[in-house]
């Protein structure tokens, strides 16, 4: 195994990278250097995030241009996957396998002996707080547990570079907080992480280094604070699936910044002008259980779309 990427050298570098699906452009002439550390890839759905992630992980071949991970081309270079861990967006599993069996089987593909693979899988499941449910079948996991077992398979072989595609999607507030903390720990431990999301708040809680992507192009790269004010001027909507949505709505109604609420079956959608304070309060409520169990928190990308429209016009 080679050393971890050294400071200053890009972990991911692309030169005029383009990808077309027939006549449709997925990514258009992207030249970018992703430094070591944590980098957020931020863009609305359909912006080209997944295409970029698939090119970075060698699942797709560039139509034009080049992409290098840790200085090497990734397409057709399986040895490089010793140093890369990938957590995909799709909710796809071998449902009949247990979490431990699945992670063990996947990490065994990295050349580990069965006993080593199981030990590595146990460590990874412990890292994502899933060791208690390790012997349960994945088909019986909740959405948040499924997200975590996906992360476990990505980090079990301790890669230098972790690529996480929408890793917080569907997690409850407590698990979100834990996962964000874990990602930051990886960053501090010298690992490089590329994490995609369509929610600025999520990315901002992990890193200030972002790539803004829209319509298959990188619009901006650098510090997140530059667009922070712009985001704040737009209301942020949050969808919360909870055991008792009415009790949750009552508790949230008194919070500053809540603009509107809409009930849906087993859930409530909230629009807030102060997303940071809102998420902090939601996490507190999930921890104390004062408004019942909160199962899932997601945020549609409407607010980010509006900001991107504004950015493009500028």
């Amino acid at each position, binding site marked *: *195994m080679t050393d971890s990427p050294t400071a200053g050298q890009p972990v991911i570098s692309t030169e005029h990278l383009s990808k077309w*699906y027939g006549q449709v452009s997925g990514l258009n002439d992207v030249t970018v250097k992703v430094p070591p550390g944590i980098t957020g890839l931020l863009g609305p759905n359909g912006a080209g995030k*997944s295409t970029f992630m698939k090119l970075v*992980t*060698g*699942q*797709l*071949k560039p139509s034009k241009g080049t992409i290098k991970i840790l200085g090497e081309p990734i397409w*057709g270079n*399986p*040895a*490089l*996957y*010793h140093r*890369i861990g*990938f957590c*995909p967006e*799709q909710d*796809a*599993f*071998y449902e*009949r*396998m247990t979490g431990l069996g699945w992670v063990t*089987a*996947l*990490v*065994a*593909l*990295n*050349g*580990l002996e069965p006993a*080593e*693979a199981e*030990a*590595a899988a146990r*460590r*990874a499941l*412990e*890292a*994502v*707080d899933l060791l208690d449910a390790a012997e349960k079948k994945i088909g019986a996991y909740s959405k948040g547990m499924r997200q975590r077992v996906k992360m476990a*398979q990505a*980090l*079990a*072989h*301790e890669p230098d570079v972790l690529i996480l595609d929408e890793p917080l999607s569907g997690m409850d507030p407590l698990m979100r907080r*834990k*996962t964000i*903390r*874990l990602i930051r*720990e*990886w960053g*501090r*431990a010298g*690992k490089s992480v590329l994490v995609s999301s369509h929610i600025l708040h999520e990315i901002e809680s992990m890193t200030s280094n972002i790539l803004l992507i829209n319509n298959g192009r990188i619009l901006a790269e650098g510090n997140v604070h530059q667009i922070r004010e712009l985001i704040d001027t737009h209301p942020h909507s949050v969808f919360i699936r909870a055991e008792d949505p009415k009790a949750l709505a009552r508790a949230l109604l008194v919070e500053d910044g809540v603009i509107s609420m809409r009930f849906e079956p087993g859930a409530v959608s909230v629009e807030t002008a102060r997303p940071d304070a809102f998420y902090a309060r939601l996490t507190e409520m999930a921890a104390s259980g004062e408004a019942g169990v909160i199962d899932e928190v997601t945020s549609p990308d409407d607010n980010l779309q509006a900001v991107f429209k504004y950015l493009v016009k500028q």
Partner: protein
Amino acid sequence: MTALDTRPPARSSSFMRGAWRVFELSLGEMLWSRRTVFLAIVVGSPVLVAAVIRIVDSMGVTPFRLNGQRLDYTAIFGVMIWLLFLRFIVPVLGVFYGTSLIADEVEDKTITYLFTRPIRRGAVLVGKYLAYLVCTTLVVLPGVMLVYFLIVPFQQIGGSFTMLLTDLGLLALGLAAYGGLFALIGAVMKRPLIVGLVFAFGWEQFALVMPGYMRRFTLMYYVQSLVPHAMPAEGVTSLLQAFFTSTPSALTCLVSLAVAIAVSLTLAGKAVERREYVLDQ
């Protein structure tokens, strides 16, 4: 949650080691898939037929006669092996499993986990192929043995048991050959199931009854030439058998099938290595 601090050793996986790991991962999933349950029912139908023959026979009624003569039980078993298993079940299993070795993973969106590991994509295909072979063998061979023990009377078992073993080997060879060919079709074609069915039940049936060299471009020509059973020598069966009198030697058949399997898997592996799999979002 804590970040990990004990990095497991990184070893480069050889092609076959990677294939073996994929085999281990895939076998359980394949065995308990809905496809296998459905095909176990298909394979169970000859067992049902054999059970009916046994019941009819135990009632003192002769189930099959040819020119007034009672048909030998081993001959009945031979006809079932040839018509039901070799001509129908083996190609069906080959088409349905072989064409979907990679396609199933793509459809389920689980291919990402296999293609982002340090093993060659060709090893993924070979591992899935081995899982197919073991899975289908485990479905078919017990069915054949049940048919044998239901049809052949206890007194005749000693003399014909070697024939049963040859049949089992032959069926496994047929599954390997058809699975390999249809894995290739699955790797390179956009509609592999249709192409596979047309090949197995269109082209092969047509080419086998045509005189000349065309039958040599089928797998069934080599597989059924290895059938150890003597077919009934009169009637429609003998007419059909006449088409297969110019059978190649066993060695030719075995070498031809081995080459077909090796070439199919090599080309399929290369196709999978080059192909991009775009998952639907």
